[in-house]
């Protein structure tokens, strides 16, 4: 592909020859390209709805920044924005390193049968829906029958209603997210670990490095590029603090601390049929995501020489 686009080889005949030569490879990638164009790039045109009032009959009416003004003037907007930023920051700071640690730990398991068992167990929560997970966590944290509070009581502690406590609910969101995604997210790091040349470890062992030193001085530095890429890509979803999770775990007592941009847009925008308003909020989120990805990429390039491209 690089050869094909190289300025030196822009001769149409060469391009055709190259296409003919590798036609099967281009054909293989064609459905993917088509998929992205159809389902990811083409719908971007619909973003113009953020600047219009939708009309089922006749043309949409251009209204400029009307929906953005409504969004930014809404009394709840800055509150939900603040919640989104806080919950996302907590999730990134706490949940992001866990899969790395988990992959390092799984990599240290010598018995392949036991490793497969551990992997299956930690991947499992990823396949559960948030409706089910919310049910599990509500039961687990119940003040009357929940295991957590029964343990607290066994140590003469006072039961805590974590689900309705403004102080604790964000932590419930973070830890339930961690429980669900840590295993699955560790796959990418495990794959990266298998790519590290074994000769590096052999050389370190000859020098007398123990397992800890090998992890710190070989595995982690070799994982740096993957970590940076995943981190930057994760930042792109910074404004998605987890609609399904929050929607299923929210209750009347904790609205002010867990109501995020997505749940707000769902209530005010989608449930009320205000699609242009919902599109404006999505566009706002998208712009923030792009800014975060680009700035982190640039900072990372300057500091570590690695980025996502």
């Amino acid at each position, binding site marked *: 592909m690089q050869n094909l686009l190289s300025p030196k080889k822009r001769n149409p005949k060469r391009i055709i020859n190259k296409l003919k030569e590798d036609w099967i490879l281009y054909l293989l990638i064609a459905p993917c390209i088509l998929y992205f164009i159809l389902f990811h790039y083409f719908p971007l045109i619909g973003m113009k709805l953020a600047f219009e009032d939708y009309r*089922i009959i006749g043309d949409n009416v251009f209204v400029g920044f009307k929906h953005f003004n409504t969004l930014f003037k809404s009394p709840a907007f800055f509150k939900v924005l603040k919640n989104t930023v806080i919950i996302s920051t907590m999730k990134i700071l706490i949940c992001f390193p866990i899969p790395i640690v988990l992959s390092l730990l799984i990599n240290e398991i010598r018995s392949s049968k036991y490793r497969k068992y551990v992997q299956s167990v930690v991947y499992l929560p990823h396949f559960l829906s948030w409706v089910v997970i919310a049910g599990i966590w509500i039961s687990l944290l119940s003040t009357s029958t929940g295991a957590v509070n029964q343990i607290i009581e066994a140590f003469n502690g006072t039961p805590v209603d974590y689900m309705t406590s403004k102080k604790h609910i964000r932590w419930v969101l973070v830890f339930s997210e961690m429980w669900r995604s840590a295993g699955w997210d560790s796959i990418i790091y495990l794959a990266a670990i298998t790519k590290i040349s074994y000769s590096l470890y052999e050389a370190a062992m000859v020098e007398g490095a123990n397992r800890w030193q090998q992890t710190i001085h070989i595995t982690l530095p070799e994982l740096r590029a993957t970590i940076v890429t995943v981190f930057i890509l994760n930042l792109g979803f910074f404004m998605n603090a987890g609609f399904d999770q929050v929607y299923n775990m929210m209750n009347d007592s904790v*609205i002010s601390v867990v109501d995020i941009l997505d749940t707000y847009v769902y209530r*005010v925008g989608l449930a009320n049929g205000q699609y242009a308003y919902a599109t404006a909020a999505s566009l706002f989120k998208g712009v923030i995501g792009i800014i975060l990805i680009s700035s982190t990429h640039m900072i990372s390039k300057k500091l570590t020489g690695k980025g996502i491209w």
Partner: protein
Amino acid sequence: MKKILALLLIITLMFSLIGCGKAKQEDASSASGNTSNTENSSENNNETKDGEPVKLRIVMKDLSPSNPGDVKYIEELEKALAKKDINVKFEIVETPSGNYAEKLNLLLLGEDIPDIIYFQGGDKQIAEQGILEDLTPYIEKSEIIQKAMLPHNKKRMENYPYLIWLKPIKTKAPVVRSDWFEASKTGKALLDNPTIDNYYKFLKELKEKDFSGDGMPKYGLTVSGNIIELDSIFNQAFGITGAWVKDSEGKYVYGKVSEFEKEKLAFYHKLYKEGILDPEYLTKKWDTKEKAFYDNTVGLIIGSTGKVIDIYDGKMKKANGQEASLTVLPPAKGKGQGYLPIDVTKESRGIAISALSPNKELAFKVIEFLASDEGQMLDRLGFEGEHYEVKDGKIHLTEKSQEWFAKFFEVHSWEPTKKIATPLLSEPAVDSMKKAEKYYVEDTNFMIPEGFVASWDAMTNLYKEYSADIITGKKSIEEFDTFVKQWYEAGGKEITEFANKLLK
């Protein structure tokens, strides 16, 4: 071999992508009922010019072209309509799984507008764009529909003439195990005079007395996540007679920021503090609420009148024996008495006809048929030989009838031509419907204008959180005044002015 396999894989992937596009094109081509069949039909004819049935596109929750039962139902409906000289061929429009109101709105905004549309919310924005037909002139001409409409249906139709939904009044009523109710010392007094105090005494007894013999129930009552169900018993008694109530100066004030509300929240806090109200009510969902009732953890729950209470009764008897049938309790009596006031600003769900349909008259004839005796027979009872059998001049419901439910209307005045050997609903369910009628209170309310939607959301959330915190004791009842102040600052002042202009 590898190349052939790769080629096959690519062809499959390409076809699946093209397939997605093609389905969309087909959808788009049939948008707005622009099919060749409908083009041939004329407004007042019951069939096309070439004698073929007129195609009517219909979208409805729980009506899917991939469900053989639904397809059979539609075929039976077509046959029954044909007998009345209404020749139609229905095309069921399938909505993707998920939230029906949301998916339906996306379908309509994508300019795919079926002739007959069932809404379960989200209709106001569509009606505002002129997509829905005003049903008033059709109803004026229809004796069947006029007869089937109850006073609340008529009021709703006057206020919002786009949706029709012929069902008995639906509200929420409290239910308790009959054997426990009869064994209680305070039950009789509650039934004779259901004051707030008598309710309190009964709920307290439910919590304190060992009715089951194994320490149950643990709590007097539970609700699913919020206090709406609890309000169904107590709101009227505390003086919250509607969404908007009059203050001492005769001006309208939002019920949830009134002094009555403060008094009510203090009472709810008392129930919570004394362990009468389930301490985990905030995290209860409808299923865990029901489970707590059937396994006797709580003594009383509140459910929708009619079919839902019928289900509660069936499940309770299955779990605890025939003697555990349910007793429906009246609402508390105080400043007023009634269950939750019935909102008459509009139908919250119902059937609409597309204003763009070339077959509006015909679509209305279908609606009219569904409200007629013949239509009700099919819609309420299902298929003869499958859901019911006729023996000795009586209708006997089969086991399979449990799976059947009316997809459209439940006309209040409808009586089958033959007597039904087994009643359609259990005794408590019928009683709940009678009580819903007896304690009918009309709401004083209006639809929140578009300009207030965002601030209304903020105000609603403010109430939800303050009320939950006051009930659970995280905030004292004195902080209710701070809530009221914040509510007015969040847009309450403007909406109250608007309410006073509108309601007068």
